């Protein structure tokens, strides 16, 4: 932690925002420092995306697994949370069915499918938020890493995974609301999602989750395990000959990363108010990788910076340059790659001799 300036700054900023944001938000609206709830939610959303980026950086930056399917874990976490929120609606849905979410009533479902059971309990949903992505990552990873699928082959099957899930979730028969996904959430743990205090609460939760995940990943990567990861990244077979079970190392890190992504998804959904299969889209996952690269790979805080910068740029450009913002964003990607080979945070770090 000592030699991690970027991380220190990041944590300090997060702590500061946790304290300041509620204060600024409670100022009178005409005050110069007033922070509208809209902005709070927006930053909260960015933070969850940053969390996802950290998860990706963990496996890509340190373990060399270029995952093009991490959006799948994010979305699964999001769906788990979405299902809980749907169940919370209860009989306040448009058809007033106390048991079934609206889309089920509307597609003539008679009873709640088995996989929706239990989601009326927050603790259950909270477990599923980590368990569902975790189990998927574990099974997928166990298969892939044991067969020594690596490099682009691994990247492409992660992409196939998220693509397949996307198609599956688009199907109405799956029971996840098809294309319309899950929306119209009302409250979380009894707090109305529309109230400012809930929004602030979600923001704080996101900031805390990010700080915690950062510390966790930092701890992992500072340990000898972290060095094994780097070793695996650079010379996988050599690590094997030294007695390291490369597949287990990969599997654990991959699973942890998937769970972090799941948490990110779960925090994302109540803040944006919708989860739909589009979150599984392979292009979304590729974008996350791009955030990490823009921020600076294998630093963790770089991932956060990348996610924040790009997403802010997106929000800004889509409002200010709606017709040509893709030029700006695309150009930004190209320029960062060419001019800042170590990402934005590379500017801050001393050049290490390679």
């Amino acid at each position: 932690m000592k030699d991690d300036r970027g991380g220190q700054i990041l944590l300090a900023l997060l702590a500061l925002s946790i304290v300041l944001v509620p204060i600024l938000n409670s100022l009178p609206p005409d005050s110069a420092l007033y922070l509208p709830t809209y902005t709070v939610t927006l930053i909260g959303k960015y933070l969850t995306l940053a969390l996802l980026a950290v998860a990706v950086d963990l496996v890509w930056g340190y373990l060399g697994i270029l995952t093009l399917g991490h959006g799948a874990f994010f979305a699964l976490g999001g769906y788990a949370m979405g299902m809980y929120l749907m169940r919370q609606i209860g009989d306040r849905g448009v058809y007033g069915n106390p048991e079934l979410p609206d889309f089920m009533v509307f597609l003539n479902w008679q009873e709640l499918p088995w996989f929706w059971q239990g989601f009326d309990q927050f603790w259950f949903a909270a477990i599923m938020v980590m368990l569902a992505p975790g189990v998927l990552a574990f099974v997928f990873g166990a298969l892939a890493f044991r067969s020594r699928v690596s490099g682009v082959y691994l990247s492409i099957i992660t992409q196939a995974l998220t693509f397949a899930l996307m198609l599956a979730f688009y199907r109405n028969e799956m029971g996840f609301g098809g294309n319309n996904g899950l929306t119209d959430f009302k409250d979380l743990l009894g707090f109305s999602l529309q109230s400012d205090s809930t929004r602030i609460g979600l923001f704080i939760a996101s900031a805390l989750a990010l700080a915690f995940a950062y510390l966790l990943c930092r701890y992992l990567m500072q340990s000898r395990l972290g060095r094994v990861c780097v070793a695996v990244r650079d010379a996988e077979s050599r690590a094997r000959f030294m007695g390291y079970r490369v597949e287990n190392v990969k599997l654990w890190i991959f699973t942890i990363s998937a769970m972090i992504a799941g948490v990110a998804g779960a925090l994302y959904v109540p803040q944006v108010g919708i989860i739909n299969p589009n979150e599984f889209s392979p292009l979304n996952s590729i974008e996350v990788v791009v955030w990490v690269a823009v921020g600076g790979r294998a630093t963790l805080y770089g991932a956060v910076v990348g996610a924040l910068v790009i997403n802010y740029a997106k929000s800004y450009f889509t409002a200010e340059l709606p017709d040509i913002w893709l030029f700006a964003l695309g150009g930004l990607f190209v320029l960062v790659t060419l001019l800042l080979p170590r990402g934005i945070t590379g500017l801050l770090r001393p050049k290490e001799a390679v």
Partner: protein
Amino acid sequence: MTVRTFGALCLLSLLLLLAPLRAMAASEEEVYSQAAELLMSRGFDEKGQAIQLLAENDHPQTPQILTLLMDSRLYYNKDDDRLYQIDDYDRGKPAISIASGDQIVIEKKRDFKKITLNNQLRSQVRQIQAELGLKAADLSRRLAAVRAMLGSMDSETLSLMRKAYAEEQSAAVRDVMQIAIAIGELPGADEARARDAIDTLAGSLEPDARNALSQYAAATDSKSLKSAAEKALADIEQRASFYGGIETLYFGLSLGSVLVLAGIGLAITFGVMGVINMAHGELIMLGAYTTYVIQQLMPNHIGISIIVAIPCAFLVSALVGIAIERGVIRFLYGRPLETLLATFGISLVLQQAVRTIFSPLNRSVETPEWMSGLIEINPVLSLTTSRLYIIVFCLMVFFALLLVLKRTSLGLQVRAVSQNRAMARAMGVRSEWVDALTFGLGSGVAGVAGVALSQLTNVGPNLGQSYIIDSFMVVVFGGVGNLWGTLVAGLSLGVANKVLEPWAGAVLAKILVLVFIILFIQKRPRGLFPQRGRAAEG
């Protein structure tokens, strides 16, 4: 002459059918003016009467008028209430009077109004056209006429058909006539003749024959005949399902060749050079847009525009590819993952660029005459011409590329550069030139794929996005760096998809194929045709 007699008979039958509606026989002029008036009225019923009038009276201009109607080239002038033929509806273009053949110039577009048809009228016209075609000496038209009548056999047509059969000389036509007669006879036939008819029908794959049989099987009281009909049906079913299998295979291959075309450029830029080229889809898109532009430039030569578009699309995409390579990628060699980032950015820029230049709307690319239509193998199996061309085209592109990479020193040099850039340069390989050329080649091929895709799907800014994932999938599934792998992977994924589709549905089939890829990679972690040897295993 038998043909003539047959034609006359058919016409006669037609006239008999139309008898109740028949207008007063009148002079040609009278018929024409009456018909023209009806045609110019607003209602479709009136237009229908006009068409019938023309057909019944066998007016010499009937075929011409019907053709013009079908092609939407028949207009009327609001001022002089006369019919005109207009090939190019624009100011200053000629309009030819139907009645007199005089030519005038369109001064105001609004003066002329097109005579439109609806579906019923169109079937009516087509029917008449077909039946007029019975007179034709042309064998294929006669054949088509008989087949058109298969679905509507009744006692009258049956007797006509019998007579015609006796006089018909062509074996092919006689075969179909036999079936027609069997269809007509079956419902009321006695036991022996019914059996004959069933036998005849059992040998045919015509859907109408099958319908006749199944109706008969449902209606007949005789157990033995019923079972004979059912057996015949089962027999037909079996053969039909065999051809169905072939059809599925063909669909699979044609889907596969689309995948191969989309992926093959990537097999070079990504597979051989190692650039994770996210802009590949947009290079395909550029090829498709080039096709569109070429068609805009030569609107009167759609047929050859496609041929012209191939080299043009190659050039456009290749040049853009080279620009990308020289401008961005060359700074990134040795950092393959960063090529992903930069090319992702480039793909966004290219998308937005076409959106700005061509608007976000889809563009319409026409299918040339020679590429449309069907090749009918038998009544249940016909192959679409355009797809056939695409399969052939795909193979041509593939082998051309193979030749370039295997037979020229370029192929060797690219591989050397991608394996050890520094050493290749130390051996005198001009790596910059090789990179640019190879990237250009891969991009150019992507452009060529765009020409093919423009025939099948949207030409719009999102075209590339919808193929990029499939392309990567195909290249990786086949084994990175192996051109043959790309071919086999594309074709087999296509076939797998089409085999699964009938029983799983389109959505599930796609999911299953993806799951299959995931599982397959577990078995063969380096694709279908892996790079082998010490070096590859690392």
